[in-house]
């Protein structure tokens, strides 16, 4: 009787010890927290694309800060909608907690995004104002504000009597539309200030020709705002060739090495630069907030910076113009 009781007690103690051990190791394994995953879809994963690489860096900074796992992807070309659709289908299969996406404007992309949203994956859109069936939470540069900033620079540079033309990329681009809207907001108060918007289709030559045409047809033109890099380069070349450098102010968007050189030599009066790092960072932060079911504003704007020749080497602007890798 006594021996039996002792055996039972011993068995219980051993059982408790065994349970304890199992718990110990399981908790240990589970103990490493946060297997949350956020997928980030860039417009382009090309390492030569400074802009998107910096976005990716910002996203990584946010992920490191909060300890989430990050999957960064993107098509090589920022116009390759088919690849982006394929990658998005992959995302749908892997089912991360959230997707931060810079969508390429394409019906297929919109359709996949719709399905991703229905699958319960939190969605944050970056960069592009895009027509979707739903209103996604968006983190984006305020393109119309950037346009307004460009317009204001033009006004200032021309002694408050601007006569400017806009060299656009495509007539349909949402970003360009927003920028033009902003430019007009800034210049419309001035008489006869806006000459027109001329699409140049990412072609430097077309921009060159257009600028030459504009110079001859609008001799009073004293400012050109180029919405794309190719437009800026074409316009700069045309102004150079016609000896109008400095006379006709040229303002461009986004930075590239060529644009920086143009800025340095004075061909460009200013460039309006986005903050891609902040975009990536805030995109992931917003996604995290969505995952935690906290309130987020539907639209997060990231300000743009006006960089001129004088301030291009300030510590802040250096970082923007020359993304360090």
């Amino acid at each position, binding site marked *: 009787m006594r021996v039996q009781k002792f055996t039972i007690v011993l068995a219980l103690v051993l059982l408790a010890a065994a349970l304890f051990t199992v718990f110990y190791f399981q908790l240990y394994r589970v*103990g490493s927290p946060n297997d949350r995953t956020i997928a980030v879809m860039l417009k382009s994963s090309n390492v030569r694309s400074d802009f998107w690489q910096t976005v990716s860096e910002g996203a990584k900074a946010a992920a490191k800060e909060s300890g989430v796992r990050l999957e960064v992807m993107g098509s090589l070309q920022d116009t390759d909608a088919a690849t982006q659709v394929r990658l998005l289908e992959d995302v749908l299969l892997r089912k991360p907690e959230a997707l931060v996406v810079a969508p390429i404007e394409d019906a297929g992309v919109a359709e996949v995004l719709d399905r991703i949203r229905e699958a319960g994956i939190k969605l944050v859109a970056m960069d592009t104002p895009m027509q979707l069936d739903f209103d996604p939470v968006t983190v984006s540069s305020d393109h119309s504000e950037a346009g307004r900033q460009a317009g204001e620079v033009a006004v200032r540079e021309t002694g408050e009597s601007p006569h400017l033309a806009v060299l656009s990329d495509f007539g349909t681009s949402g970003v360009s539309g927003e920028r033009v809207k902003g430019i007009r907001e800034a210049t419309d108060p001035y008489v006869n200030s806006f000459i027109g918007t001329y699409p140049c289709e990412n072609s430097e030559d077309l921009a060159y020709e257009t600028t030459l045409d504009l110079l001859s047809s609008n001799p009073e033109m004293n400012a050109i705002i180029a919405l794309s890099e190719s437009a800026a380069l074409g316009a700069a070349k045309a102004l150079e060739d016609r000896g109008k450098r400095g006379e006709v102010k040229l303002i461009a968007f986004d930075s590239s090495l060529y644009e920086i*050189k143009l800025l340095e030599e004075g061909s460009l009066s200013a460039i309006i630069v986005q903050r891609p790092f902040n975009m990536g960072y805030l995109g992931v932060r917003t996604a995290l907030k969505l995952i935690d079911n906290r309130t987020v504003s539907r639209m997060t704007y990231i300000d743009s910076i006006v960089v001129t020749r004088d301030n291009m080497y300030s510590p802040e602007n250096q970082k923007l113009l020359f993304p360090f890798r």
Partner: protein
Amino acid sequence: MFRDRRPFFPLFPLKSIQSSIAFAFSVLILLTIAATSLIAYRLSVNSVESNSKGYIKEVINQVNTNIQSYVDNMENISLLAMTNKDVKYYISSNSFIGDDERRPYEKRISDLFQAILYTRKDIASIMVFGYNGRFVSDRRITTLNPNAKVEEQAWYKDAQREGGKSVISAPHVQNIIQDEYRWVVSLSRELKNSDGLTADGIFLVDLNMSVINDLLSQINLGKKGYVFIVDQSGNIVYHPQQQLIYSNLRSEKIAEVEQAQSGTTFKVEDDEGKRFYTVQDTSFGWKIVGVAYAGDLIGYKSTLINFLLITLGGVAISLVISVMLSHRLSRPIRNLQRNMRKVEKGNFDVQAEVTQMNEIGQLARTFNMMVGQIKNLMQEIVDTHENKRKSELQLLQAQINPHFLYNTLDSIVWMAETKQHEEVVLMTSALAKLFRASITKDQELVPIRIEAEHITNYLLIQKMRYSSKLDYRLEIPDSIMGYKTLKILLQPFVENAIYHGIRNKPGIGTIVVRGMDTEDGIVFEVEDDGLGMTEEQLEKIWQAPDNGEWRGGGIGISNVNERIQLYFGQAYGISIRSELAEGTVVTIRIPKIEGTGGAV
């Protein structure tokens, strides 16, 4: 048994001892474990903290050493350039090198710079700018950026201002060479003339920022930890999230860092979490700061989990043990309780198991003794009742002894036939009284007066039957007539005296019935001068007819004795003295019981 299945965590009010003990144990154990683990946790957290502080310090030291070595290296290169004669001559203001002699100098200097550059992957470029307008770089052909004025560069102006001392710039984009925009850290220094007073130019070494960047980004300070650098004036030289700080999305504890001594660590706790800042000064003015998040440090988490688990495990085990212990301790009590309940239901055969000689064992033993006593007493009561019943039955039988009745009736018939009317009347009335006295069953105790009357009637009848042989005397004083005695106490002895003592005796026999008032009580004596008894006979009559069977003449002496003792206790009873051929004296002792008198 249902108490065994009480929940493990008893709620107040605690109904059983087991739960009370278990509760007390649990509280005690929990408190002890809580206290010890709290203390141990504090201690180990402190040690983990100090360990990790040490670790961070070491890492930062390492960073410092590495960066310092890069800077030292640049310094050495600058010294090399400074002491190089070709460089000196080339940029010398009192120019004795003609323009035609320039090329070979340029080539030699450039070759020197190149040779240095080959051995050092971390150096981006080496250049010398003479105040005489000449410049040499590590490249054969150097085209300066026409849009960047060397004289306006920060590193140029700083070197001029410092006048001979080397100056380390913050990381910046070096744009003085055409088409090259590289992130570098510049070391610049004004080169003095051989007289040591006038300056001839500026020497520049650019360190690839990627070297420092790689160094800093490879440092592992936990998942979220990072390293940043500020300069003397509190400007951020390097920060992994510099852009966020510039756009005010993030702030850094610059003020605290500036105040902190080199090699110290301070703790910051805000909504971003608890973290440690370790500050290390460098010889060239930068402060290297390591930031590690407390929750990130490996020891931290495992310590926490360890303690939680050890505490939980300890609590679980001790709870189980306390429940078991209390079960074990209270088991004898519960056994006893169970046994008591059985006794409650009337089972007196219960014996509690005495396992240990502790308090509970003693209790169990006492309980056993008590139950035994109760059992004996109960048995005694049962026996007494049985005996009483038996003796009453015998008494009844004695009173209506059929032989006596027949004989008496025979005598009456005989007397009637002989026309002794008076005797018939006397005898019949005595018989009637005798029977009336015995039929009154309601009272066991009667006054001695009644008993005296009874025995008088009996003797009267017997006297009439054995007139020739029997004589009798009744010597009972009036003083004791009021006391009470057992009913029909004396009749059996008188009967015995007649049948065994006098009947077979030749000649007349006398029976004397005495009553005496003594100190100890009432003493009756029935004395006859009959045959008497031998010792053996005397012994024999004491042996009671155990089956209660009626044996011939009378009631067993022992039965009467027992009856007396049943009523009055062991102090009272019968004693017999007998002498062969002399007679027998039966002495009966009963207590004095005051009667109300006049009963029946």
